């Protein structure tokens, strides 16, 4: 639910409640004032009539407004009473409300009962009048409120939507700073400042982490070079026993593996840092052909059949190194994870490249294929190849998908 609708909902509820109370109070007040006025009138009339009677003048009846009785028995005590009564209207026939003054008094020795009445406004009529006028005002007020809220919210909340837009577009690796909306609303300005501070902090932490990875990799490279050269020197000694030779061999292999992993990590970091940005227009088929030539020895040694179909000329606008890393990883995988005597199929279309190869059932679920350090059951891999592929896809806007059907590993690049 939008904030605006919620606000209006509450406003509506509260206003209605107030108007009902106001209507009730108004009714009571008007009623009171009317009775008071009428009572005053009635008393004045009564005094007038009594005065006339005292003077011996005749006062004629005017029912139902004025009724004058001569009482049979003398009054024990004089009395006067004012009350509201309902009597049938002689003309219209329905009942009407009257204010009635009944006075029993003795004038010139004759006991009288004087009844004076005054027609009252019907309660029902008053209620209708009050509620309809209040209803109308309420309706007008609500319309005004809605309209005002609508326009105000557009104006007032504009800086909020501005900030929200920036948040939605926020990328950790990007460098875009949120532009201040220049609002003079304190709350929104505070929000803006807090968000700017937060994004700066997050970015600087991210940068620190990245440069740590980068530095760590660089620092690892030199000691590794030393370890490898020492092991190589050790290998040259003539008096190594087969046992010792095995130990050196194992140490050497693993140091090399570490070095490879490290290099892949450096590559990955550099891709993330967008350090490959010498974009050029490159024909994909050219790179593929060049790579296949480089891989020829491996393809022949595994007795693989390569079938390539270039249906269209695809051109990438990309850094040459990135294109090279991407395609050599894909083709390299197709060779490495192939079976003896297997096949590789390369299909190039205008916006799609598909490389599929025969191979054993993957030991990894397809959705984990692109995760870092996922090597499956095979050893000797860095487990970073497809992670690098995915990262290149992310920075260049290409989509890379993996699928395994009919004993074939299929990698599709959409661009």
């Amino acid at each position, binding site marked *: 639910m939008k904030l605006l609708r919620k606000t209006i909902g509450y406003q509506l509820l509260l206003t209605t409640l107030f108007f009902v109370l106001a209507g009730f109070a108004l009714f009571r007040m008007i009623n009171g004032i009317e009775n008071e006025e009428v009572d005053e009138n009635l008393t004045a009339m009564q005094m007038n009539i009594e005065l006339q009677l005292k003077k011996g003048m005749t006062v004629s009846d005017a029912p139902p407004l004025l009724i004058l009785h001569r009482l049979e028995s003398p009054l024990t005590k004089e009395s006067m009473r004012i009350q509201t009564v309902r009597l049938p209207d002689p003309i219209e026939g329905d009942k009407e409300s009257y204010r009635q003054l009944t006075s029993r008094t003795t004038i010139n020795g004759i006991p009288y009962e004087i009844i004076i009445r005054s027609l009252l406004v019907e309660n029902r009529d008053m209620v209708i009048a009050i509620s309809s006028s209040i209803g109308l005002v309420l309706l007008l007020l609500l319309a005004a409120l809605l309209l005002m809220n609508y326009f105000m919210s557009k104006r007032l909340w504009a800086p909020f939507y501005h900030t929200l837009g920036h948040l939605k577009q926020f990328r950790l690796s990007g460098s875009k700073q949120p532009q201040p909306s220049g609002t003079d609303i304190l709350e929104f300005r505070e929000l803006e400042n807090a968000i700017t501070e937060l994004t700066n902090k997050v970015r600087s932490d991210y940068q620190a982490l990245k440069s740590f990875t980068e530095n760590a990799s660089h620092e690892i490279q030199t000691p590794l070079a030393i370890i490898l050269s020492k092991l190589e*020197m050790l290998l040259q000694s003539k008096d190594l026993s087969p046992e010792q030779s095995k130990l050196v061999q194992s140490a*050497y292999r693993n140091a090399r593996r570490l070095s490879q992993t490290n290099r892949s990590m450096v590559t990955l970091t550099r891709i993330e840092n967008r350090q490959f940005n010498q974009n050029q227009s490159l024909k994909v088929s050219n790179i593929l052909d060049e790579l296949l030539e480089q891989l020829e020895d491996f393809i022949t*040694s595994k007795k693989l059949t390569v079938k390539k179909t270039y249906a269209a000329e695809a051109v990438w606008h990309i850094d040459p190194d990135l294109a090279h890393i991407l395609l050599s990883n894909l083709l*390299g995988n197709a060779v490495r994870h192939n079976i003896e005597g297997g096949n590789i199929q390369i299909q190039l279309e205008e916006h799609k490249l598909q490389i599929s190869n025969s191979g054993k059932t993957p030991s990894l679920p397809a959705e984990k294929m692109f995760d870092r350090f996922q090597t499956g059951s095979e050893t*000797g891999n860095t487990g970073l190849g497809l992670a690098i592929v995915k990262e290149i896809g992310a920075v260049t806007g290409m989509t890379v998908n993996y699928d395994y059907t009919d004993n074939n590993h299929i990698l599709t690049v959409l661009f």
Partner: protein
Amino acid sequence: MKILIVEDEQSLADDLVTYLASEGNICEPAYDYFTAEDKLAAFHYDIVLLDINLPDGNGLQLLHQMREHEPPPGVLIISARDSLDDKLKGLDLGADDYLTKPFHLAEVNARVKALGRRRLFGGKTEIRYHEISIDPESGTARVNEQQPELTRKEFALLQYFVTNQNRVMTKEAIAEHLWGDYMEMAGNFDFIYTHIKNLRRKLTDAGANDYIRTVYGMGYKWSDE
């Protein structure tokens, strides 16, 4: 050849000195920028192995100084930074070759020798090993007067072996020399065996002795012992 090794990691520098000295070179290490600058001013070197990241300066600066020598030494940059920028800058400033750490000592040796041949003899030297002679420029090899038909890879393999004779060459070092970074895509080194088998057959068919020794589990060694 006289070689200056500018490398701040003493241990690595000493390994390079030992390895290259055993090939008959005169090697001197310089562990920092200051010493390197000093030595370059005082002596003449045929080849300089240059690490870019030195504690007291950038190795690329030394390239300017080296260019003032006549003739300037051949420069092989060795750096932990495998950044294309550094590589291009280094080559631009007059370095001849670039190698990224970690490297195989055999690879350094091969590059240094190739550099030395280009520098000192304009590349026009035959490498002789008993009855085998190798011409790096034309990429051909002769056994006595016979010329076996070697593929490009087989020739590179032969030259690499002879350059690093009497040493155990790991399969990794051989693969990296022949296939560079692509080697990592192979997954295993079985394919090297095919190339070695073919080279061995072609050489013996042409009348050469078999100098390739298999070092169990590790790799190969070129030796007449």
